[in-house]
């Protein structure tokens, strides 16, 4: 940081680079809004960028968006409806958002819904950035209905700002208790589940299997503790609980403690990559032959079981859906999805698909006029569509009332391909534990 050294580095820098940087700086200041004459150029750049983002949905949408951004949603009727999908498309959980988007898109494509325009943004799993993006999607891109958030923390941050603007939010995945109990909202619909449900289904099953002494393992954070609580709600008291550092993927220590406890069964909640690591290490430790493990569906989606490989076969997990679930809507979906994307759909794709279909059914009812929020709300609440889950309706808190199943991982048709198969239905028309705290149904 001494002068001599600064001089040297300055001299080494080629002149044109400095010119370029000065240009960049100027551009930066312009875009930051520090100069009034940059407006025209800005419009062009943001428009171009947007087309790239939303290309799958609307190849040449720039003009439409510019207009829909300037006029308010008020006067539309039988016009194009803009749906904002804010989801996770980067980072190690990116496939969750991609599958959600593919499922949703498939629903639009199959219905030939030209008058729904999908604007997609990546929340990068950053709650703060996501808020800014949501604002932008509403005020600039003219999104009239929002959907797509994968993670509960992002949903907690973004959804209230959407609801405040009297817009509908349809959750494709995240189902935090925030919006299920006292905090339920007329404009909020969960088309997936309430976060505790998969754990409750698994708890019921483990109880039915006659296991008395069970220990639980989960990452040390809210969703981990919620999941263990959900399990306890249907199973009963646990022998012990182990919490590991969030994101840590070496479970040798927890496995040593489980060995020391010598329980009848283990319940674990390790979503995403953590699940791959836990299952592999558990099997390696030799414990798997003596003590069975059970988990919620989050650790067993089709992408993850492929990654775990052969070792996953036979593991049981609680879910509301499986690719082989026997109903016509599901068969049609799985077939069309395989054809379009060359892979077996995950539950995230199924959730995205159901959300798309639900929305289309509601838009049909209101004749694509979303200006009357209340009419739209009623149309969504009616849930007048064929869900890939078979039975589907909304409870008083506008979360799903649906059946829960135990799935088992099996080898797929091709080598190295694994998938889930239904073993048994464990919970029938299950309502989440928070619904009674919600006052929506009272009025």
């Amino acid at each position, binding site marked *: 940081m001494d002068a001599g050294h600064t001089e040297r580095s300055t001299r080494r820098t080629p002149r044109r680079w400095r010119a370029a940087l000065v240009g960049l700086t100027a551009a930066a200041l312009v875009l930051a809004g520090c100069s009034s004459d940059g407006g025209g150029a800005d419009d062009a750049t943001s428009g171009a960028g947007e087309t790239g983002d939303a290309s799958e949905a609307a190849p040449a949408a720039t003009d439409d968006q510019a207009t829909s951004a300037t006029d308010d949603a008020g006067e539309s009727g039988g016009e194009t409806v803009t749906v904002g999908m804010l989801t996770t498309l980067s980072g*190690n959980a*990116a496939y969750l958002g991609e599958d959600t988007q593919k499922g949703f898109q498939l629903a639009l494509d199959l219905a030939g819904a030209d008058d729904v325009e999908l604007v997609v943004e990546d929340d990068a799993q950053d709650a703060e950035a996501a808020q800014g993006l949501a604002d932008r999607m509403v005020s600039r891109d003219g999104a009239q209905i929002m959907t797509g958030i994968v993670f509960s923390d992002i949903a907690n941050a973004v959804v209230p700002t959407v609801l405040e603007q009297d817009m509908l939010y349809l959750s494709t995945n995240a189902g935090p208790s925030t919006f299920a109990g006292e905090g339920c909202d007329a404009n909020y619909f969960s088309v997936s589940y309430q976060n505790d449900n998969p754990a409750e289904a698994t708890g019921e099953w483990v109880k039915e299997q006659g296991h008395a002494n069970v220990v639980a393992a989960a990452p040390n954070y809210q969703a981990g503790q919620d999941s263990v609580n959900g399990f306890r709600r249907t199973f009963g008291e646990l022998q012990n609980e182990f919490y590991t550092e969030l994101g840590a993927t070496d479970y*040798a220590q927890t496995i040593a403690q489980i060995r020391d406890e010598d329980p009848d069964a283990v319940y674990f909640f390790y979503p995403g990559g953590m699940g791959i690591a836990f299952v592999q290490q558990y099997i390696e430790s030799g414990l798997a032959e003596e003590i069975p493990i059970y988990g919620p569906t989050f650790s067993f989606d089709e*992408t993850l079981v492929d*990654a775990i490989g052969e070792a996953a076969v036979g593991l049981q997990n609680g879910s509301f859906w499986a690719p082989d679930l026997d109903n016509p809507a599901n068969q049609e979906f799985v077939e069309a999805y395989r054809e379009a994307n060359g892979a077996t759909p995950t539950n995230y794709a199924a959730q995205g698909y159901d959300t798309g279909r639900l929305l289309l059914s509601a838009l049909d009812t209101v004749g694509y006029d979303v200006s009357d929020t209340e009419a739209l709300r009623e149309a969504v609440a009616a849930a007048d569509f064929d869900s890939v889950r078979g039975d589907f309706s909304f409870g008083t808190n506008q979360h799903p009332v649906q059946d829960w199943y135990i799935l088992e991982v099996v080898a797929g048709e091709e080598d190295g391909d694994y998938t889930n198969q239904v073993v048994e239905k464990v919970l029938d028309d299950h309502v989440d534990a928070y619904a009674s705290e919600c006052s929506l149904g009272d009025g």
Partner: protein
Amino acid sequence: MELFLEQTLNGLQAGFTLLMISSGLTLIFGMLGILNLAHGSLFMIGAFVAADVAARTGNFLVALLAGVAGAALAGILMETLVIRFLYQRDHLDQVLATLGLVLMANQGVQMVWGIAPRTLARPSWLEGSVSLFGLQYPIYRLAIILAGIATVVVLWALINRTKVGMWILAGNTHRELLGALGVNVTLLYTGVFALGAALAGFAGVVSSPYLTVEAGMGDNFLILSFVVIVIGGIGSIKGAVYGSLILGLADAWGQTYLPMLVGEFTDPSTAAAIGSSLGSASIYLAMVVVLLVRPRGLYGAPSG
């Protein structure tokens, strides 16, 4: 007793893994004077290359070699394209430029290998477990401990028994001498950086069976390595060895016994959560204690 033995072995295994990363980091710092935040990225690159090669060939040893070579190659690229221009710079510049490398590497592996998490299976000949004083312990974890011991021996021999080692030692203290001795300093630096990168890549590959191969997988190891070399003393390989093992064991024992200790006072659910947080904090507490007693670490050069 069985639990204690198992946790001790787990602590050693974690410690030796950490050692492979932190010894490279400390070597690079001691020799080149570079604080490399992208060291965790080299760990990650090694893992990704190995996972890719293993998926193609099905051979763990080939994948291991490819991973180490890939990390070394990435290290050479980093050194020649970016790091080399930072030798004259202060630590602030080094932090920022290598942070830039971290961002590029994290996104870069996703651009090359896609966004879905990957795995690397342990080789079939290291599967299963062996009985050790009545405890069933995974063979693969024992193999990591042995690989760690081998790493220490090889590094020790390299530094104390070869000409290159002599240069490295000399370079640590009297850099100008190297030029006078007719050593090609540029090449030596690149070589040392590649060696550190290869070690990180090696650690990345061997720990992949316990991890998910994904972007950012090296970040936590990087920060732990920092704690190791703060404890051990920057630039000291010996310090890195002791620091790694202390950290590995402190973490393993802390995670086990602190929740038990807290459990004496509260209900199990709260105790598990609090104890786990305390366990995570135990390594940082270890660092604070060392700092209070020896601000330059266990084997750092004395303050001037």
